[in-house]
């Protein structure tokens, strides 16, 4: 075998070694750069969640900011969010995609999760009165340097739920007043705290019954409680048939609002 062939084999060897070193250097720098961007530079961050309620639909808008401080571009950045009940049943899911985030640039994507509050509260009535928590699964997937695929799956992130009618209770019943032969008035006092992210606005209706299940009268009260506020008030009941009033029985409580729809809150005994 001549000298030229020997030189060719040597050149092939050097070319392979050099290419392997370059590929390895690329792999190391890209992984290092990605880890630096995510862990130390906090390149992926979730902003403040914004909520909006209309027509009984609660829309949670979750901003995700990607600050690419690395050496390479990020492409096909997909975000998938899945909101689940405490038992794992899916309530809502949503996602968004950022095609390219060039190195040294920042991009923000908004992912929306829509929750049908009427449907949710009809299935999970306890959420009206009790604070609870949901589970959120977040899935980020992206390509780094157009060669490496990364996927981050954050499972079971806790999302607190604030009850709109937290600690709702009828706190007392006043003495009858404005007594006439055809009827009288009676005040029923109630209170609750709005722990939810939306304004509790609507009409509270009370129906009065005696202990013989006979209807006595009803009353309504319009309420408007912003998020994070407590409320105490009273509903004036007009008793239409005073002769049937026995001083004991039960009250049917219901609430109707544009956000939550019509809700039967339950029955409270009095007397």
């Amino acid at each position, binding site marked *: 075998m001549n000298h030229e062939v020997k030189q060719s*084999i040597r050149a*092939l060897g050097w070319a392979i070694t050099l290419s392997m070193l370059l590929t390895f250097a690329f792999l190391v720098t890209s992984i290092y750069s990605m880890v630096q961007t995510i862990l130390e530079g906090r390149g992926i961050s979730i902003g403040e969640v914004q909520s909006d309620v209309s027509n009984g639909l609660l829309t949670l808008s979750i901003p995700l900011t990607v600050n690419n401080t690395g050496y390479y571009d990020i492409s096909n950045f997909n975000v998938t969010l899945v909101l689940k009940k405490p038992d794992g049943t899916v309530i809502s899911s949503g996602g968004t995609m950022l095609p390219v985030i060039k190195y040294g640039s920042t991009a923000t994507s908004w992912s929306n999760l829509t929750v049908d509050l009427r449907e949710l509260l009809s299935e999970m009535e306890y959420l009206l009165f009790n604070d609870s928590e949901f589970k959120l699964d977040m899935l980020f997937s992206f390509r780094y340097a157009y060669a490496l695929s990364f996927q981050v799956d954050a499972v079971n992130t806790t999302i607190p739920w604030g009850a709109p009618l937290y600690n709702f209770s009828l706190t007392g019943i006043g003495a009858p007043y404005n007594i006439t032969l055809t009827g009288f008035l009676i005040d029923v006092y109630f209170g609750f705290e709005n722990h939810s992210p939306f304004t509790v606005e609507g009409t509270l209706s009370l129906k009065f019954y005696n202990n013989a299940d006979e209807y006595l009268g009803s009353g309504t009260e319009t309420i408007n409680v912003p998020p994070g506020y407590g409320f105490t008030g009273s509903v004036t009941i007009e008793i239409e048939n005073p002769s049937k009033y026995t001083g004991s029985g039960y009250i049917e409580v219901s609430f109707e609002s544009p956000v939550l729809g019509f809700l039967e809150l339950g029955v409270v005994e009095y007397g």
Partner: protein
Amino acid sequence: MAEEKERTLRDWASIILPRVLRATFWGFIMGGELLIPLQLPSFGGQIESLFPQSQMSFTNVVLIFVVFEVAIQLLQGTVIRYAFSIARTIVSMVALFLATNGGVISITISSSAGVPLPPEQTIIFTVDFSAVLGIFLIFSLLTIVKNLLQAIDFLSQKAEEPVTIPEFP
């Protein structure tokens, strides 16, 4: 024609010792140095945890590489060296593929002692570098081709060397 001298123990030592030293040196350079920290439980455990629980651990991959390198250096000047080089490349390809789970590595971080995560939360990191692994495997195939050409070159050189025919008494 000069009569071939019978080799003494000193001659054999002068042939073998440099080879052993060279094999030790290259074995250390080509992965042997990695085996030392890998044996430390604190460091080795961390490195091993990065690789999927596959049929092949990272330490085994390095060990195979070192053993082949030592054998290649010991058999310098023979055609078996090239056979070992080809075998090392093939074994390394298979071992790399198995150790990296085909280029897809997943790391699961759960909320436990020392991990600042809320209870029940789990984070799963998955890295897919199968494209880069593919490139490495192609380079490995080219290395096999190079070793074959080197073996052919070595054999042709041997064939061209003058043959000393022993004289009849």
